[in-house]
């Protein structure tokens, strides 16, 4: 390894290579801290050429690598791999090009999500995907996870806003997917790459679409006796043919936590609904009147519309701080991310309540209610023997509820390390084997974040179905699990 380290150092410079155990600890996990693996080294390239040179060495040495942005992921996607290195894109943080007439921005992967909006907001544009961590998460990480956010109900996910990518493939070659113009001839490889959780290569340049700010934005808060009434109001809003920019829901425990953390001035109720409409003033005013009526008729005694940008910002601050706020009411908690068809909400909520009581653990609920994305937060105390295990079990049971309801095991946090075992519950073997074929086209040696996403990694060239030992396996240099 010494020689390889020297080569890596020659590429990224002394300050671009981290190899001391002390400094490596920073990189042993991402936002999901219960999985930890020490990488052999971390490299911090400055340029695409450096990324290519590093990946070529990994390819030559058959050394796995994991690309990392800001490390805010919540599924262990950026968790290092045994005997592998981490490629941190944090130093590649330049906004390379801003093109307002065509509403395109070209960035490096380490650019922070909110900095894109910061750069284009003087001209009244914004970058639409807004994960709650947007002030620290990177665009490269957003691409890997296909991040969503509260406003993706109307504006779409990261994949909608990525028009093109420059990618270093796992053999070190440089390729371009999509571009500044739409429908480039060929397969939609950008569409496959976004959300592939770092398993298909490393993005080094990203062409983004930016959006003109709407004429007005109005945010309504409605307090309901429980999440059931709030959910019924959401159904009515959708049935009326409205597509709000965001619909968020919080239950009482989540409200308490958010209040304790940021004093968002939320009404104390069983189910809080936040509805945001945006667009032309006349349109939004007309629709907001209807939303108010719908909330009243579904039993909301208190309805408020934020009267200023400051009030609106505070309303959102409470929502976006909701995960972290759990620290105020519980020593430990697990953030879950599941999706259900929105109409299954009352049934799934009552099941979660039942599981919560049976397990003796509190569950706070924060939802992107418009699209059925649930974030149940399972609260526990690690110091109490058995509680952590019970919380993990409860959290998994919630995902099984989501699958049973026809939903998904992840809406925006990704599969990563955390949920790879659940993949076999959501997909059948032929489904997973077909995804594996795509992976083998990109990464036949399986060097790029190799142990993530899929439950049973299969060597490329291996036939699914009948068990045939791969030559590497027979030779004792690879194993399956």
């Amino acid at each position, binding site marked *: 390894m010494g020689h390889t380290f020297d080569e890596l150092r020659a590429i990224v410079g002394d300050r671009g290579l981290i190899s001391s155990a002390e400094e490596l600890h920073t990189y042993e996990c991402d936002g999901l801290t219960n999985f930890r693996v020490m990488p052999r080294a971390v490299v911090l390239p400055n340029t695409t050429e450096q990324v290519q040179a590093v990946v070529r060495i990994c390819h030559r040495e058959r050394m796995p690598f994991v690309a990392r942005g800001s490390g805010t992921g919540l599924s262990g996607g950026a968790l290092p791999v045994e005997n592998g290195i981490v490629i941190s894109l944090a130093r590649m943080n330049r906004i390379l090009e801003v093109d307002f*007439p*065509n*509403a*395109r921005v070209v960035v490096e992967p380490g650019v922070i999500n909110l900095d894109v909006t910061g750069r284009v907001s003087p001209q009244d544009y914004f970058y639409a995907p807004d994960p709650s961590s947007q002030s620290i998460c990177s665009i490269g990480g957003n691409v890997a*996870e296909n991040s*969503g956010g509260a406003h993706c109900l109307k504006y*779409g996910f990261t*994949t909608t806003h990525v028009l093109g990518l420059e990618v270093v*493939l796992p053999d070190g070659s440089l*390729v371009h997917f999509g571009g*500044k*113009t*739409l*429908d*480039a*001839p*060929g*397969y*939609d490889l950008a*569409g*496959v790459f976004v959300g*592939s959780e770092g398993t298909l290569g490393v993005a080094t340049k990203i062409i983004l679409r930016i959006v*003109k*700010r709407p004429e007005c934005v109005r945010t309504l808060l409605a307090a309901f006796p429980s999440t059931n009434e709030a959910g019924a109001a959401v159904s009515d809003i*959708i*049935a009326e*043919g409205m*597509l709000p920019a965001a619909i968020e829901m919080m239950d009482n425990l989540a409200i308490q936590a958010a209040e304790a953390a940021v004093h968002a001035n939320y009404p104390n109720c069983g189910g809080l609904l936040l509805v945001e409409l945006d*667009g*032309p003033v006349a*349109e939004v*005013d*007309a629709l907001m009147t209807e939303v108010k009526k719908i909330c009243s008729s579904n039993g909301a005694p208190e309805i408020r519309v934020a009267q200023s940008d400051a009030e609106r910002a505070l309303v959102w601050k409470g929502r976006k701080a909701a995960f972290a706020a759990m620290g105020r009411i519980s020593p430990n908690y697990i953030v879950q991310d599941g999706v*259900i*068809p*929105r*109409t299954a909400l009352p049934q799934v909520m009552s099941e979660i309540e039942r599981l919560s009581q049976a397990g003796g653990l509190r569950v706070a609920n924060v939802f*992107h209610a418009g699209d*059925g*994305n649930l974030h149940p937060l399972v609260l526990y105390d690690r110091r109490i023997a058995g509680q952590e295990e019970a919380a993990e079990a409860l959290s998994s049971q919630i995902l099984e509820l989501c699958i049973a309801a*026809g*939903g*998904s095991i*992840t*809406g925006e*946090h990704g599969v990563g390390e955390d949920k790879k075992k659940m*993949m076999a519950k*959501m*997909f059948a073997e*032929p*489904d*997973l084997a*077909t*995804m594996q*074929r*795509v992976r*083998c*086209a*990109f990464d036949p040696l399986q060097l790029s974040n190799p142990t993530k*996403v899929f439950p049973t990694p299969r060597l490329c060239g291996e036939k699914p179905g009948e068990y045939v030992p791969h030559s590497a396996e027979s030779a004792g240099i690879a194993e399956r699990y």
Partner: protein
Amino acid sequence: MDAATKPEASGLHSALRHKFMAIVGNENVHAATAADAVAGVQPKLVIEPGAERELAEILRLSNEAGLAVIPRGNGTKLGWGNPPTRADLILSTTRLNEIIEHAWADLTVTVEAGCTIQRLQETLAQHGQRLALDPLWPEKATIGGVLSANDSGALRLRFGALRDLIIGATIALADGTLASSGGKVVKNVAGYDLPKLVTGALGTLGVITRAVFRLHPLPRNTRSFSVAAASAEEAKRFVVAVQDSKLAHTSLQCHFSDDTSPVSDILFEGTEAGLAAQENQLRDLAEHAAVSEASRSTWTAREELWDFSDRPCTAIAKISILPASMARTMKLVENIANRQQVRWRALVYATGLGWLRLEGKPEALRGALHELRSELEAQHGSLVALHRPEKMPAFDAWGSAGDALPLMKAVKQQMDPKSTLNPGRFVGGI
């Protein structure tokens, strides 16, 4: 013995044909006729499976036997892409046409590949919803065909392309594997996004058997306006200004041609109050240009481009450019058309996607398409030839796929190693 079972008529081993018949029933295996030819290549059999499993099984047997399979819906876009290098059988999805589940309260629909766009839209409309897409020939075009050809129209500006609307897909691979990916919920990041991979793949990776889409509400009211421009430059300035404004328009397109002044159309959807306010803003923004109310039919202008009697002398191409280079591109088209002595008409959307119709001698058409493609590719754009008259000298339908072509070939190799599906029809000989 009917034509389909005559060994000498098909060149297909009769035992294999009997296996096909055993799977789908005798009545669903036909000898192909001249009308089934694919870009001049004559297949031998047409098979119409009635279930996904049947389709997958036909595909598996064909793949084992080394046959070339051409998937087909209603065939409205069968001429798109290069002629196949081989074509043995047409695998028709027309009997797979069920609307499996319209979960209207969840704004999703699960539908089989052979269902037409129009029938789907009529069903969705019963609950005030739509697939927010306006492809060509909705009365005939099928879900599978529209997906495979990645067709989209004016609504794309607001609602995105098929890639943004499809949330799940089941595909039959050449080896008979039936694989699902995505799901039935709008928000879902579990596993690779294979629905996007097969969208626009022209059936070269697998046969789409069903798809799940996110839906949008039908608009409460709509208003369309046309705005005249004295020049392409003026039309472009209008488009860029609208895109940079606070208007919440749904569609925006420009008509250009060699003998008329440019006209832009804009579509608004929403409440009456909202529409009235937007009309006022539009009139302010258009300044001195004439703004007139337009009929809803202006949004099917794309179909009119295809309305030609003179097939041997007409070519149609899809171009992709940066929206702000619209005027420059039209000037380019004009210069090339003059040089090559061809007539031209174009419809360009504010997304930068456009449709170009050229009329002239076949050699001149090829010359014009070739020149224009070189120019557009140099500006990060593309030109895909969709209709080429038979007598036109050979011209690749796709143009350059860039430096990702080897990877695309690797994906094809993984999914369809024997090149059973639509061989030679896609980019780079895929």
